[in-house]
């Protein structure tokens, strides 16, 4: 019995020693853990938690990207803000085309995510400041027609651009979101740097897009601003349709 008790005590002592060693090694290893920043603010802690819960599956913990999502290195605050504030991210299915929707996060949470992504993947395009009151409508119309109308439609109501991609309607976008889209070129949209669209162009463009949202519909129903397709449909179905009903009601049936 005594021999047995002695064996048990030795076994326990060995387990404890191994446990201690593991704990010490773990402590040492922990002290060498990657430090995101020496002074971690509450915002970054919140951002990190949100990032790990919502973004890391596809964009990876280090923001380097996975097969399901692109790298976020150097995308910058403009892209993060645009994708989150317009509800395009997070995507339920990584193969979907990101579409505008209800944003999943509050603006405070978005700021936290921007700060956190900025800390692990610094650089990139800053959030542009867009001041519509500094813009000029005529210049904005010109910038829009020359650079944007080819895909988004002359009425800014959106159109398809091939490859299953849709240039969306611009009406729901805020001036800041317009500026972000111009600067980062989300999806298949080209990126327009200040050498193509300078700050004054950008302010004017946003001013024009805000203006045509509620103006430019002189002449009645706008028919979705898709042009001749809707007009032809109305002419045939409503115009000719009413007249044929009149003929049918007033003419002989046999």
């Amino acid at each position: 019995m005594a021999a047995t008790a002695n064996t048990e005590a030795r076994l326990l002592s060995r387990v404890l020693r191994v446990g201690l060693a593991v704990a010490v090694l773990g402590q040492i290893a922990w002290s060498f853990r990657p430090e995101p920043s020496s002074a971690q603010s509450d915002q970054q802690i919140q951002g990190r938690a949100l990032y790990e819960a919502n973004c890391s599956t596809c964009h990876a913990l280090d923001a380097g990207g996975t097969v399901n999502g692109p790298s976020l290195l150097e995308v910058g605050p403009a892209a993060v803000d645009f994708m989150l504030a317009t509800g395009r991210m997070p995507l339920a299915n990584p193969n979907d085309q990101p579409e505008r929707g209800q944003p999943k996060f509050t603006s405070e949470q978005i700021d936290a995510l921007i700060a956190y992504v900025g800390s692990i993947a610094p650089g990139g395009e800053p959030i542009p400041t867009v001041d519509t009151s500094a813009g000029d409508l005529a210049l904005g119309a010109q910038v829009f027609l020359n650079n944007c109308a080819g895909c988004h439609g002359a009425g800014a109501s959106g159109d398809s651009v091939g490859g299953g991609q849709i240039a969306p309607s611009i009406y729901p976008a805020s001036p800041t979101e317009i500026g972000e889209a111009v600067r980062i070129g989300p999806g298949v949209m080209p990126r327009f740097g200040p050498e193509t669209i300078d700050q004054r162009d950008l302010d004017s463009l946003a001013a024009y897009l805000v203006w045509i949202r509620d103006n430019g519909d002189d002449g009645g129903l706008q028919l979705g601003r898709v042009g001749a397709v809707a007009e032809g449909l109305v002419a045939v179905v409503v115009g000719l349709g009413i007249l044929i009903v009149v003929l049918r009601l007033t003419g002989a049936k046999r």
Partner: protein
Amino acid sequence: MIVRRLVDGVDERLDGTSFIRRNLGKVFPDHWSFMLGELALYSFVMLLLTGTFLSLFFVASPAETVYRGPYAPMQGSEVSLAYESVLRISFEVRAGLVMRQTHHWAALVFVASMTAHLVRVFFTGAFRKPRELSWIIGVTLLVAGIGGGFTGYSLPDDLLSGTGLRIIYSAVLSIPVVGTWLAYLFFGGEFPSAELIPRLFVMHILLIPALITGLLSAHLALVWHQTHTQFRPKGTPESSVTGTPVWPKFALKSVGLAFITFAVLAALGGLSQINPVWLYGPFVPYSAPSPAQPDFYAGWLEGILRLWPNWEFHVFGHTIGELFLPAVVIPGIIFTALALWPFIEARAKHDTAVHHDAQRPRDEPVRSGIGAAGIAFFVLLMLAGSNDVLAKYLQVEVDTLNGVLKVLLFVVPVLVYAITWWICRDLHARDSAPIAHPPRVEFRRNAEGGFDEHHDEARSRGDVAATQGDREQP
């Protein structure tokens, strides 16, 4: 009373008694589908009225000016005088916008009702001998209407219409050997030339309306002279005409229809925006907007272009551009076949007789099948012409949609032909041999509590006869 006195007055002076009296009493068949052509006529009248108003303010000049009107997003922009005058009509001229929009809606309804009229004439065989000339004039009117629409659509010198003109320019260029010369001849130089808008203007407000007015007069004179076809019950002689006399009933009804047409067009013009050129901006050669569609009557031409593979041929050292087949040859074949249809059908059926009756579509299953297949073909091409807009609303890829449409373009017309032929044949067979009612059998209870059958031969025969009688009533 007034009319009688007026007619008498004219008669006394011009000795036209027989002519006027005969024609006021002329009887016109009044089946509702025979009035579709009148819709086109009254839409054309509306086009002339609103077009005259617009021509007072439109400036057919490509000269540059700086826009200083009330439309804020264009202020200070360099635009052509033509574009500026369209903005002036839209925002400054009193009633200018409603006139412009009514004009455009009237153009769409004009071509739409001409097409509906053509479809009616086709399906009722009203183009048959001796009315082939009316048909050919009608097809020419349709082409003239499309031409009038296209030249008018191009006049405002906006970005959208400029894109359309560029397509036409390229189509003319693609004609082998003479293309370049023809393009320079008609456009007055390299696109976009300074000559273009003045030339389009002359075509739009002078040549094409004159052509349409002339052809329309001939078209109506022929109907008057040759009498209208009409549906006739079997056994009625073809010489008989039933309907309403020109005066008073037919004329008053027609005037009423004219005002209803004007009302619908004016309502569209006042309530619904069409071709907002201020959104499209002035034409610049280096830019193009989207969605870029022509008016609907050219949508099928656009559809051919969008579906056609980019084939380019080299024959005897000449390049035959990829636009030549889809933009020149195929529309040419389609319109030629359409114009010659009465002769094609007559030859196929070895039919040299003169016909004055309007047929029911069911009585000609092959023709009705071809007509329905043709409609399906054009509708599919129009869908192809609007593929980007469709793709947006259907949330599919444009390329997928094009691929599907290319297949459907060959499959659907064949199916539509087969189904139409089949329905027509069955309807025709049912009419010529109506299904007899089953013999009427009465069961009567007898004294033992069982039932006896009583066949009522006379009554069941009577029922069948009554049914046939109903059907044959005109």
